[in-house]
Structure formats: structure tokens, C-alpha cells
């Protein structure tokens, strides 16, 4: 991938969310340093977890500070401690957390226990997600008959999901 500002290869990749709009920047080493991103300085564990392994403790360029509208936690604060401020922070910082979550758990879809209070829509979604995982396993093992059965189950559940009139 080329740098946004020149023809060199991009080595720093940034994703910013501003007012629900997501922007991506790709910069080569020189332009990154120009923007104030020092890729040679020591990397903290939280930085690596954030999937921004080449960005220093300095913040994103152009004076943007992203913070959670509900609890006020700012991105820098989270990077320091590795802990979020409130459940809504996940929505606020999702763009950057996605990579870290994927790196940690090799997955971004929950298929385990669901609280009793969650409605049937969530249960159906979870069932579908679990079946999809089973489908992948069956295909990997070349058990195509079993895979076809699972696929049919998934389609049946998807129909139930739609017919229950739920927004997904």
C-alpha cells in the first residue's frame, strides 16, 4: 500500500473516527515522522495491543482527541491503562479496538453464554454464529454432507430471524 502523500510504501496505518465518520491514513516512514509520529521510540504493550505497533506514545496528528461521549474517557487514557471507562467505550473506540480484539482472541464474535434478559433476536444471532463456526470446521475436515446440513440449519434460523421482524 502506498503512502497517502508520496509513492513510497506505507508503514504506518491509522484509523480515525470523527463524528461517526471513519478515516484511514497510510503514511511512509518520512511522512509519518513529519506528522509527529516517531516510529523508532519504544513501544508500550498497550500500543501493540492496539494494533498500532509502530506508533509512539504521541497522539494522532491534526489535534484530534477521541473520547467517549458517555464517560469522557479519552483514547490516550485507555492506551495508558489498557482499560476502558464504560460499556459504551466499545462503541466509541471500536475502529481501533477491532484489531486488538482480533489479535487477542482470534475472533470478534461471541458464541458463548447469553444473559437471560437478552431477547430472542440475540439468541438466534448467537445460534447462527455458533453454527457458522461448526460449518467452517466441517468444511475444513471435508465433511461436506454434514456441512450441507449445517448450512440448511443456518438458513432456517436466518428465516426465523427475519420473520420475527427484528432489525439486525
Amino acid at each position, binding site marked *: 500500500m502506498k503512502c497517502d502523500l508520496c509513492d513510497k510504501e506505507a508503514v504506518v496505518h491509522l484509523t480515525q473516527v470523527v463524528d461517526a465518520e471513519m478515516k484511514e491514513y497510510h503514511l511512509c516512514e518520512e511522512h509519518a515522522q513529519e506528522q509527529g509520529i516517531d516510529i523508532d521510540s519504544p513501544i508500550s504493550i498497550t500500543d501493540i*495491543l492496539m494494533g498500532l505497533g509502530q506508533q509512539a506514545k504521541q497522539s494522532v496528528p491534526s489535534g484530534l482527541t477521541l473520547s467517549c461521549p458517555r*464517560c469522557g*474517557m479519552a483514547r490516550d487514557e485507555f492506551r495508558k*491503562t*489498557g*482499560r*476502558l*471507562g*464504560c*460499556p459504551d467505550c*466499545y462503541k466509541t473506540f471500536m475502529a481501533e*479496538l477491532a484489531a*486488538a*480484539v482480533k489479535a*487477542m*482472541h*482470534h*475472533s*470478534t*464474535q*461471541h*458464541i*458463548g*453464554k*447469553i*444473559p*437471560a*434478559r*437478552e431477547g430472542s*433476536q*440475540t439468541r438466534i*444471532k*448467537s445460534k447462527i454464529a*455458533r453454527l457458522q463456526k461448526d460449518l467452517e470446521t466441517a468444511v475444513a475436515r471435508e465433511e461436506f454432507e454434514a456441512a450441507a446440513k449445517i448450512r440448511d440449519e443456518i438458513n432456517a434460523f436466518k428465516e426465523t430471524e427475519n420473520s420475527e421482524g427484528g432489525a439486525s
Partner: protein
Amino acid sequence: MESSPSEGPVVSSRVRLARNLLDATFPGWASKEVRNRVWNDVVLAFDTFEKSETFLRWRMDELEPLDRELLFERHLISGELAERQEGSGVFISEDESRAVMVNEEDHIRLQSLQPGLSLQAALAAADALDDALEQNLSYAFSSKLGYLTACPSNLGTGMRASVMLHLPGLCLTEEVKPVINAVSKIGLAVRGLWGEGSEAAGHMFQISNQITLGKTESEIIEHLEQIVLEVIEHEKNARLRLMDSQEIKVHDHIGRAYGVLANAALMTSGEALDLLSAIRMGIDLGLLPDIKRQDIDQLFIRIHPAHLQKEAGEALGPDERDMKRAQLIRHFLDGS
């Protein structure tokens, strides 16, 4: 409770579930008022079902430092909770098999502890308690990310399952490092219970899952159990090899441990842990028929500083503790 010799290496199994309330900031970011409110909400939830069970409850700001240490030594609260003040606390079942920490890293950290290799039972107990609490609380949950936690490393199931293992054979044959490395490569974490890495005092280790999202609770537990069984096999083989090739040395090692424990006037924690480890292995090898393994497991806890002081009924300095520790062990061994 009788357990077969092959279960000797497994001391206990634990399942911990992390939960947070929907409408409050996480404890590390929350104000005192919010934390107190969360505590009160959990108290209410307990009061509603406590009619069928009894849970003892303590706020951290009501406990003396020694009492907090005591709970920590018994693995009922974490070091982090022991440091917390207002709004943090713990609920503990009378038999100590279940504990619920409030306002530690997450609003609720529910723990279920069972002796031996019994992850399924530990999970069942944790689940039941989770369901009971949830009837009066609204958890933060997303269909995609699962239970929402203060740290993304706990997302999804919010479950940390772990098994405590006693691995003297592997330590003595110096094979514990490769085993730790192999286990670490498959998504599990291994750490010494006291001390770091392969220098674990008492040869006690804890293996736990690292991934909490994208697998079901059963899958995580099955995987952990499978690996634990393999590690136990390695441990048993190491012990067999020791007995085959160096039987007299093993006898000597255990005999000397017994001798020192039965006669020393001063004993540090570190030394006690290592000597008790030898005794525990001696029991497994059938060399010490008069000592019960569960008594030794209790002794592992009773020799810790806060327990000693509680038993003595007063605060003790380090030298006094070393004296008390030695006395406690001598009396245990000679039956007084």
C-alpha cells in the same frame, strides 16, 4: 474426600466470570458514588436470593489490613481488591467455594473453586450463581462482543478457567520449562503460584485460558482439561522415572524434608513451601501413609503471614512469624 493417586498433581480447579452492570462506568474510572451505587445494587441482588443460601459479606473499607491479607491468602480475593477502598467488597459463600468480588477491575468478578480436576462442576456452580444474580441486575452485553469488560482481554465469555497443579517431578527432573513453553504456545497461560516461571516456590503452578471470546464456555474448559491431563501424564512419568533411576535419592529428599519440618525452630515461607512440596509428593508416592494430602494442602495456606498472625491472635514481626511457622508445622506433624 478420597482422590486417586493420579489426581495428586491437581490441587484445585477454578472458574471466574467477569460481569459489569449496563448503566455504570467501570470501577477504575467510576466515582465513589457510582461504585457505592454498584455495591448497593449487588447487595440487593444477594438479599433477594440469599434466602436459600448464606453469603458472608465485607466491604474492603471495613476490613483491617490483616483480614484482607487473610482473604487474599485463601485465594478468595485478588491482590487488587485487597488494595481497594470505598465501594469495593466481597461476598463469600459459607463453604468458601464461591466468592463474588465487587468493584475490582470489573463490577462483578464471580469465582467458583473446587478441589481436584473439576472444571465442569466449578463452571456449573459459577453459572448458577451468575443466573441468580442476573435476575436482579442488568448486565452490559453485546451480541457481537459478549459480556463487556473493563479490559478487552476478558470480552465474550468473561471467563477465566484455571487449574492449580503440583509438579515436583517435572521440577526435579528439570523438565518443567519445556512443558511450560509448549502449553504457552496453545493459547494457555502458565505461571508459578508463588514466584515466577519455573522458579515456582512449592512447585505449584496455575494453567489458565487466555482466550475468552469466540469460544463457548464448554469449549474453553474442554481444551483446558485436555491439556491439564497431558501435563499430569508428563508429571506422573517424571515421578516414575525419578523412582526408577534414583529411588534412594527420592527417599532421601523426602526424608530430609520431613526431618527438617519436624524439628526446625525457625522456618521461612520459601523453605516451608519447598519442604511441604516434598511431603506432598511423598504422600502421592505412598511413602507417608500417615499424612493426609488435604491436610498438607491446608498447611500450604496456614503458613502464610496473615494466617499465622490470626492463629496467634496477634501481629507478629518476620522473625516471630518464622518461629510460629516452624511451631505450627512441628505440632501438625507430631499430632499435638
